[in-house]
């Protein structure tokens, strides 16, 4: 009884904290403070997923929400500030942001309508739905993996994951199409401590990525989590000024970026020709095929996220290096 009580207190504190943090990070006018609040929000969100018994999502939230996004936002803010101090008039006016009152009301009404609609839908649900978990459990044997989440993501509904990979690639193309970025001045070598830390951390991150990929077959883990940990290694190297050579940035990078989606598409075509259905794996080879798909997906996800961190296409690399 006491356990239930403490668990209830923990959960309600977590829920209230999440709401408060979300509100604060949106309403706060100091952008740096908002980023710190957002990082804290990511941490609590991961704890909430753990409490909801969804460790797979918690792992993804830990890797992307709390880890990479914080670094990404912080670097974006630093670039924004350097643009502002250089006296870019266009950015300054955007930042002042003339609020249009009617638009705000329109937004408020639209959002309230949506919230009401969502609330109605949730209330009108039947109280107990069996869901698809029993169907997944009965076919788990044939999927080639023993973790139900991986079985759904890579086997039963593999096309969802294929489309997710394409979305990531499209996001990068979107960033690249915005044009080049101002290269960060990294002429000063990284301090010794940072250098030593990087030497320790990068192998650890790569090892952890490999572990998460492998463990995904029977426990929470998988390509997206492993890919974002791999990307963190890349981000760390970029941060201390270890930019890849310009030659690597051209064709090899692009090949790694499309490796995951291309393998997926190739697999989809082959399974369609042999098995007669999109991404339908023969049960005896499913385990190996899923591992192959996840490995290539991990490499592509890692490269894509690190390239997103780098920002726009580097026209300036030629004169830079």
């Amino acid at each position: 009884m006491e356990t239930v009580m403490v668990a209830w207190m923990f959960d309600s504190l977590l829920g209230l904290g999440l709401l408060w943090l979300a509100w604060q990070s949106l309403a706060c006018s100091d952008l740096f403070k908002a980023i710190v609040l957002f990082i804290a929000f990511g941490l609590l969100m991961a704890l909430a997923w753990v409490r909801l018994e969804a460790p797979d999502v918690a792992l993804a939230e830990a890797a992307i929400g709390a880890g990479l996004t914080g670094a990404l936002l912080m670097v974006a803010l630093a670039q924004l500030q350097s643009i502002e101090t250089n006296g870019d008039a266009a950015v300054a006016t955007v930042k002042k942001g003339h609020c249009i009152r009617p638009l705000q009301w329109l937004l408020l009404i639209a959002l309230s309508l949506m919230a009401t609609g969502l609330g109605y839908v949730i209330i009108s649900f039947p109280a107990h739905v069996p869901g698809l978990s029993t169907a997944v459990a009965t076919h788990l044997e044939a999927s080639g993996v023993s973790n139900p989440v991986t079985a759904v993501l890579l086997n039963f509904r593999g096309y969802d994951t294929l489309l997710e990979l394409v979305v990531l690639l499209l996001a990068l193309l979107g960033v690249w199409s915005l044009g080049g970025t101002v290269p960060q001045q990294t002429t000063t070598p990284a301090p010794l401590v940072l250098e030593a830390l990087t030497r320790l951390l990068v192998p650890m991150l790569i090892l952890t990525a490999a572990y998460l990929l492998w463990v995904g077959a029977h426990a929470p883990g998988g390509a997206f989590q492993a890919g974002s940990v791999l990307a963190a290694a890349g981000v760390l190297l970029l941060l201390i000024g270890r930019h890849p050579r310009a030659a690597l940035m051209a064709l090899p990078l692009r090949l790694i970026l499309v490796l995951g989606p291309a393998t997926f598409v190739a697999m989809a075509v082959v399974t369609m020709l042999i098995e007669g259905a999109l991404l339908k794996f023969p049960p005896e080879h499913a385990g190996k095929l899923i591992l192959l798909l996840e490995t290539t997906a991990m490499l592509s996800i890692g490269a894509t996220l690190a390239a997103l961190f780098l920002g726009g296409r580097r026209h300036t690399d030629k004169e830079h290096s």
Partner: protein
Amino acid sequence: MQTFYLALALFLLLTLGAGMWRVLRGPTAADRMLAAQLFGTTAVAVLLLLAQASGNAALRDVALVFALLAAVTAVAFVQRAWPKQKQEQEQPQETERDVD
């Protein structure tokens, strides 16, 4: 024993509230960043306690990922955000914010 672990996790969650005060007050960006790092460490501890309480070993993997990636955020701050803050301290808008 399960109650004990959960109670400890609850206590750690409460200490986050104390850290939140530092995030809101500042006064400098480094104060806020260090509070966020402390949150990361606390979250790792909470995850380990929850792993022990629920017997779900996968939560330790989540804690591992947290611990590894918190360092990356800290490096991003030191390398990109902090030098900028120092340079801009001469400018009126920055000093205004630092004096709280």
